[in-house]
């Protein structure tokens, strides 16, 4: 087990788990938003903004995982 091999596996696990958890959370947020719009189509403008905000906050954690995956390889 050399260092380079373990670094590669670590990077892959970091970004893979981050993407998995991120899509789970964003899927639930999108599902709730779409159901709210389906019940009440006039509230689309008011539902859209908090949905975008929630998606960006969830996605920022995924981006943090991506940054760690790059940092491990030394390409910051």
């Amino acid at each position, binding site marked *: 087990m050399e260092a380079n091999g373990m670094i590669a596996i670590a990077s892959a696990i970091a970004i893979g788990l981050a993407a998995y958890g991120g899509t789970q959370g964003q899927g639930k947020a999108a599902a709730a938003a779409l159901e709210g719009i389906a019940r009440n189509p006039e509230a689309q403008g008011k539902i859209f903004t908090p949905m975008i*905000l929630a998606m960006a906050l969830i996605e920022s954690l995924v981006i943090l995982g991506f*940054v760690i995956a790059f940092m491990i390889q030394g390409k910051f």
Partner: protein
Amino acid sequence: MKIIISIMTLLLSSSVYASGGFTWLHGVTQATGLKEHTITFLFTSVLFIVGGLLFRVKTKSLSKSVVPDKGVTYRNLVEFIGDFVYGQAKATMGDKNAKTYFPLLVFYFSFIFLNNLIGLVPGFLPPTENFNTGLALGILIFIYYNAQGIKVQGIVGHIKHLMGPLLFMAPLIFVLEVISHAMRPLTLGLRIRGNMLGDHTVLAIFSDLVPYLVPIPFYCLGLFVCFMQAFVFTLLTMIYIAMAVETHDHEEHAH
């Protein structure tokens, strides 16, 4: 005109990394000792100031500029951006606060949008790809909303905000809130840096593989990501300012 633009998009679908590191501002970087992202940041600042002066020239007097122009002109685009940010600010902060903080918000939105967009032009690196630019913008927001909170509510009132609703849990909640507030500039900078880096890297890799015709969907994705990141930054700024200056005296709108 459309044919020229489409041909240029086909032929120039390459980016900085693909062509071996050539940038338009390479000469300026070698002449002075500054780094690449600083030079590009100064370049976009100059573009922004020129754009602002151009808008000022086009709206000559206040009485004649009520009627919008016909079609797509520069003035209509700027007014569209202003209207969009003002609508969002009214929905988040209320009417009076939106009018007070509007100049800062529209500056943030259009400046970050311009900085992101210049990464899509072949031969430029976006300044927001570096962590330093995002951190600088985040620290400015941090200082600004704390200053506004202290100005509106006084120092004691502002710190009392951090203590939470119940009194006997104050030490625990105070520590959590301080850490959460201190992480805000960092996450603002890291979010925009990670998004721009990922988007630019994907574009570079696909331009390396197939230089013509295939990177066009990635340019569309890049446009979407640029707009969304500027929008999210502005939205979070609005929410931080709104949470810092809210007063519990009057409740205008019924929930």
